[in-house]
């Protein structure tokens, strides 16, 4: 079962992708810049960026012959929306439990 419905949560489950994500939160970067200081190859960084992009967490655009990656605010807000759904679901279930006759609650 999925706890957070948005695939972005799963994309962030990888330690390297999380590191990339946090770096992009600081500022937009090209692949080469991201690869510096990360313990993975540049092609691996590109693969991780693809996963993040497919999950809607980052977007890219061309600047000259480079691709600059940055966080996608809409994708990030989806993560927050999943927490929101969590509480919406919890409170609806809570209401059902609390309104049961008292002796039926274990």
């Amino acid at each position, binding site marked *: *079962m*999925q*706890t*957070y419905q948005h695939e972005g*949560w799963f994309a*962030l*489950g990888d330690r390297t992708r*999380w590191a990339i*994500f*946090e770096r992009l*939160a*600081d500022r937009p970067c090209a692949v080469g810049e991201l690869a510096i200081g990360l313990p993975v190859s540049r092609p691996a960084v590109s693969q991780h960026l693809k996963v993040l992009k497919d999950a809607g967490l980052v977007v890219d655009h061309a600047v000259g012959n480079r691709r600059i990656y940055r*966080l*996608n*605010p*809409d994708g*990030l*807000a989806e*993560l*927050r*929306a999943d*927490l*929101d*759904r*969590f*509480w*919406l*679901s*919890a*409170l*609806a*279930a*809570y*209401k*059902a*439990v*609390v*309104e049961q006759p*008292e002796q039926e*609650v*274990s």
Partner: protein
Amino acid sequence: MSTPSAATSIRHEIVVQAPIARAFSVFTDDFGSFKPPEHNMLGVEIAETVFEPRAGGRVYDRGIDGSECQWARVLAYEPPDRVVISWDISPRWQIETDLEKTSEVEVRFIAETPDRTRVELEHRNLDRHGDGWEAVREGVDGTDGWPLYLQRFADVLAG
């Protein structure tokens, strides 16, 4: 909503047909009875969720094999009016061990009548979970922020 805090907190309220004392005790003692079942970081089915009824207490799930997963701390316990727990779960859906990076959930109980209680819930300080949330704050301040998500909630409810 256009204030920064709107993006870094989540608010919901619900009115229940129950006296305030019962509303409080069900929310705390019986947390496991309404918590969405997919909220489970154990590798096995949850046998029970334990909510220790005191400030400084722990909130944890116990699996059917006896394993435990503590995912919150009780920060304030003031029956029947208010309870605050930490949310020690990272955006990577793992237990956050750095307590500086945890958010918190405050629940307030307000008696509307002797038999009806309003429950207000705020999950706040989401930006503490990491730098990414700062970007969230900037992102949802725009025009396509909140209204869009409210529509999505409506869709979820309708679906």
